[in-house]
Structure formats: C-alpha cells, structure tokens
C-alpha cells in the first residue's frame, strides 16, 4: 500500500516535468536580473566581468559617503510621501462618491478617473509641463509632487472603490440601527473595513512614485529624484554603487510587502488585498 502511494506520487511529479522547467524559466526571467544586480553590488571589479570577483562592501562604503545620491533618495521619499497624501486625500472621497452618490456624469467620471493609469507617462508629463509653464510655476520637487499626486489619484480611487464594492452595506445599516449616527458609522464601521484597501493603495502609490521616471523627467527642477539621479549617472558610466543603492531599495520594498502581508493575514484577508500584493510586488521587481 505504502509503496503504491509513493509510486503514484512519483508518477504525479514525473508527468509535468516540462511544466516545472517552465516555472523555473519564468522565475529566472523575472528574478535573475535582480539577483545579478544584487550580486554585482558586491563585485570588486566594477560592473563588468564574469564571474564576479573580489567580493567587497566597498560600493556600499562609497554609496554611504555619496552626498548627491542620498539627497536624491531623500527627495524621492519626500515626493512619494507627499504624492501618497495628495492622491489619498483626493482619491478616497472620489471613491466614496463613486460608490454612494448619484450625480450627473457619474459614468463618465468613473472612466475619466482611470485615464491617468492608461495614459502614457510621456503625455501626462508633457501636458503637466505645459500647464505649469502656462501658469508660470517654476519647476521644482513641488511640481513633481503635484504630477505624481494627480497621476496616482486613479490608483487610490480604484483600490478604495474596489474595497467599498466588497463592503456589505447592511453593516452600515446595522450601525445606524444600533444608534450610531452617520459620522460615527463612517469611523467605526466603514473605515475599519476600508483600512486594508487604503493601506494597500498607499503602498502601491508610494512604490509607483518612488520609481516613476517619465512624468518626473518633464517636471524636474534643480533637485533630482533617485531614478533621475541614476539615469543621469548612467550616461557618465555605471558603477556598482548604483547596484548597491538599488539593492537597498529592493530590500526595503520587500520588507514593506511582508509587513503589509502579515497585517492582511491577521485581519482575515480579502481578495482585493491579494491583488495589491501582486501589484506592489510587480512594481518592486
């Protein structure tokens, strides 16, 4: 009996061996570049040369004393945080309006809100640049913040709207029924149910903003964001210092995803949450 079972199991794994190979190939395709990037951040011989030799932390040492890089990291964090705040502040109420309010042109609004997601960054960037020029606003980090903030409202709106659609309206009625007014119901029932959608949207917006390059390219003033700093250096010749800073960002993204995933599991989890995990994972890699 035992033999039979194990025989069967071997049969089961033997069959789709090519599938396994395929899976390995897909994973390699996705993650090998990241692995190489990380590996070469420790390579003493610079970016070229195979196999990597003289493993070293030197590039990290160089990186930590490189002022401009850290300035750009700092700029990027500021921009991402501000963009996140702006897009949530506008996107969450927009999602509530889409879900609850009836107003003329609602169907159109719903589609328009999605537009920045579909629109190429070049067009968004160019049109914002023209707008800022026309308004005689000097380009700076602030213009990038405004650019990211507006472009990413759609992410906040769609994520939170999806969460609202899954929310059982009877819960809000139950709350009103039990004596809570509309405001109390919003804070005690609606928001706790939306918490994960909002955190998910925030993480997604943050990561999207962190690695955004097309819109930023048009709106950049004197201060660089990290992707633009890297871009600028690439033209002068790459060093593993870039690999080192990328590795650090990768690790931070990973930590953020894991933390959020844990949070989600603790709360019982929703499918919407899973989508965000995938989306965030996708942009991080």
């Amino acid at each position: 009996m035992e033999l039979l079972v194990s025989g069967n199991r071997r049969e089961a794994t033997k069959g789709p061996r090519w599938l396994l190979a395929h899976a390995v190939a897909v994973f390699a395709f996705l993650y090998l570049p990241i692995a190489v990037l990380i590996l070469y951040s420790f390579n003493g011989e610079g970016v070229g040369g195979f196999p990597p030799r003289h493993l070293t932390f030197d590039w990290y040492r160089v990186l930590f004393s490189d002022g401009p890089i850290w300035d750009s990291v700092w700029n990027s964090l500021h921009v991402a945080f501000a963009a996140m705040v702006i897009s949530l502040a506008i996107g969450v109420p927009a999602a509530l309006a889409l879900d609850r309010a009836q107003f003329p042109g609602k169907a159109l609004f719903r589609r328009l809100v999605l537009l920045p997601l579909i629109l190429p960054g070049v067009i968004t960037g160019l049109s914002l640049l023209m707008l800022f020029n026309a308004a005689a606003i000097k380009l700076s980090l602030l213009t990038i913040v405004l650019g990211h903030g507006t472009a990413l409202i759609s992410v906040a709106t769609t994520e939170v709207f999806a969460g609202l659609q899954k929310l059982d309206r009877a819960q809000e009625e139950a709350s009103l029924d039990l004596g809570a007014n509309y405001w109390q119901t919003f804070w005690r029932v609606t928001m706790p149910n939306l918490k994960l959608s909002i955190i998910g949207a925030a993480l997604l917006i943050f990561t999207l903003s962190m690695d955004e390059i097309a819109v930023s390219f048009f709106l950049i003033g004197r201060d660089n964001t990290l992707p633009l700093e890297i871009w600028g250096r690439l033209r002068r010749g790459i060093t593993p210092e870039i690999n080192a800073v990328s590795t650090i960002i990768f690790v931070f993204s990973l930590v953020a995803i894991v933390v959020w995933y844990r949070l989600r599991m603790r709360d019982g989890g929703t499918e919407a949450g899973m989508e965000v995990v995938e989306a965030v994972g996708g942009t991080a890699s």
Partner: protein
Amino acid sequence: MVFLPYSTAASVLDTNAATPKTLLSIHNVAKHFGKNIVLRNISLDIAEGEFLTILGESGSGKTTLLRIVAGFESATAGEVWMGDERLDQRPPYRRRVNTVFQHYALFPHLTVEENVGYGLRVAKRPDAEIKTRVEDALAKVKMTAYAKVKPSKISGGQQQRIALARALVNRPKLLLLDEPLSALDANLRRQMQLELKSLQREVAISFLFVTHDQEEAMVMSDRIALLRSGELEQVAAPREIYSRPATAYVAQFIGHTNLLETEVRGGIARCSSLSWPVQLADGPALFSLRPENIAVVPPATLVVSGRVRLPGRVVNQAFHGATELIRVQCAEELVLIVRTPSSVAGHAEVELEFSPADAVPVRKSAERN
C-alpha cells in the same frame, strides 16, 4: 399570554387591563420606486408585546415595509407613529427600534462581545454597565463561550444568536426581524423558531417578523399580516387566517384549499354537480373548502342531515407522512383535494362528504402583478 387580534381589541370600548396597548402605528404608508409601486396604502398597528408577522412572497414589499419602520427607506406617503412620536421623520439612529438582518450584518472587525456591545458603546454607557449587559445578553442566547471570537469563526446559527443579542441588548421597544431564519437549514430553523418565540415571551418586546414561509408564520405569530403585491390582504391571528381566509389568495397561500366558484340562486350555491344551502344574496360567490374538512365515507351509508355528499374517483395521491392528499375527480371540471389519514391505498371510487359550514365564502382576489 394571549393577545386579542387588534381588530377585536379596537372594537372593545372598555379599556380593561387585558386590552394590549398599541405600540406602533403604520398609517397609509405607500412606497414608490420611480414608476414601480412597491407598497400602497398600508395601515397596520402593532400591540405592545405582540409577535406580528408580515408574510408575503418575494417582491410583495414586506422587506420594504420593515425598512421603512427601521428608517433605511423613507415612505413616499403615510406616517409611522410610536406612541406620540412620529417615527418616519427621524433618522434610523434615533428610533427605539432594532433590527436583526437577514444575513446578520455582524461587524467582521469586532469580536462577538464588541459586536453585542456596539449599541451601548455608541450610546456612551459606563463600561461596567456595558460589561454586565453584554454578558447577560450573551447568556440569554447561550453564546457566552464565544465572547472573544470574531464572527467569521462561528457558524450561521451562532451568528444568528449574536445578531439577536446585539439588537436585544439595547432594550428596544420593537425588534424588527428580516427573514432571520431563511439562511439556516430546516432542522435548525425549526429549533430557532421555537427558541425565538420563547425568547420573545421572556423579554416581552414586540417583534415585527418578516418571512415568506407560511408555516413559520403560523408557528410563531400572534397575528399575521399577509401582504400581496404591496397591499395587505388580511391581518388576523393564525387560526383565524387559516379557518376564515378573507380572500381566495389568502386561502391558497396559507395551507391547501379547494376554491369553489359557485352561482348562488335562492339561497343555494351551485358548483358543477355540487350544491348546498347558503345565506348569501344571489350572484356569483367564491368558497374555500379545506382538504381536511372533506371526509371520505364508506359508500351506501346514510347521509347525515345537513351534510353534502358526492361521489368521485381518485386520480392522484400524494403522501405527506401522517396524512396524504388525494385528488378526487367529482365531475367533468370539479376536482377536489381531500386530506385523508395515510392508510388506504387506491380505492378508485369514493364517496366524499363535507359540512356546508366549512365552505368559507372568500373575496375574489383582485388581479395584480
């Protein structure tokens, strides 16, 4: 405690202690959704401590009526009064009414205990009071052991109990229940019907219960309000609504019945080969005759005076456990359903007998959709 049907109570002029006081009055309530008329001209009173069931098919407007009382929908016309307070102009959170929702609507992010304490916490009751009242409420529905658990971890029947405790802990004057048992399987549902009924007696709160299940309505209610296409067909105690249905629809919706279309002439009602004396004016008349009021009698026995006897042929038998329903062809277009004890199989030719008093005149139900 036995409650008089409201119609009787209202006609009794001396207000003795046995007459229940009216708790909630629904006056001429109508509800339109655009061109779609969901409720028309509903007037209904609920007495203190009464278990009143709104019974109706899906789409009859029963849930809408409940939601108007709860405050989730506003009536297009009419008023809802509780004592001297006009309820329908208040938001849901300022009505002394609580609801048990069809799918319970427990808060998934709160524990059982926090769910039950929600209303008290919002009302800013002192912590100690919340604690004892929540404990009492959980004990009442036998769910004390689950206080710290999230709702997603308990079964449907248990969620049902929590929903009940969460509503009752606020000591509402009226509890609204929107098909609360429909999600449970048959066995549990029967058990919960009895529990709910005895709980209602214990807490002495008026229950307004919505269901589409006529058996459930009969088992639990003091009175049944039968709703059809947004209008009340009849409001009466279960026994009365069963034995004295007002309309053909009521007779058919509650239990089985034979509807006899007759022509009355000179105090005799005629229907095909059938005739019996009635005290009605000449013209067409409709009668409801329950299957259990028709007896199968041995052939060639003496006809008891006053009873109607007719021969027929059994065309169909349906086994129902203790009894069975047989269909008897008595004439070309006269088939009667008869309830008999389940024993005799297949006498093709039978003699039937019934008392004219059991043929209840009913109004023809208006054509509506």
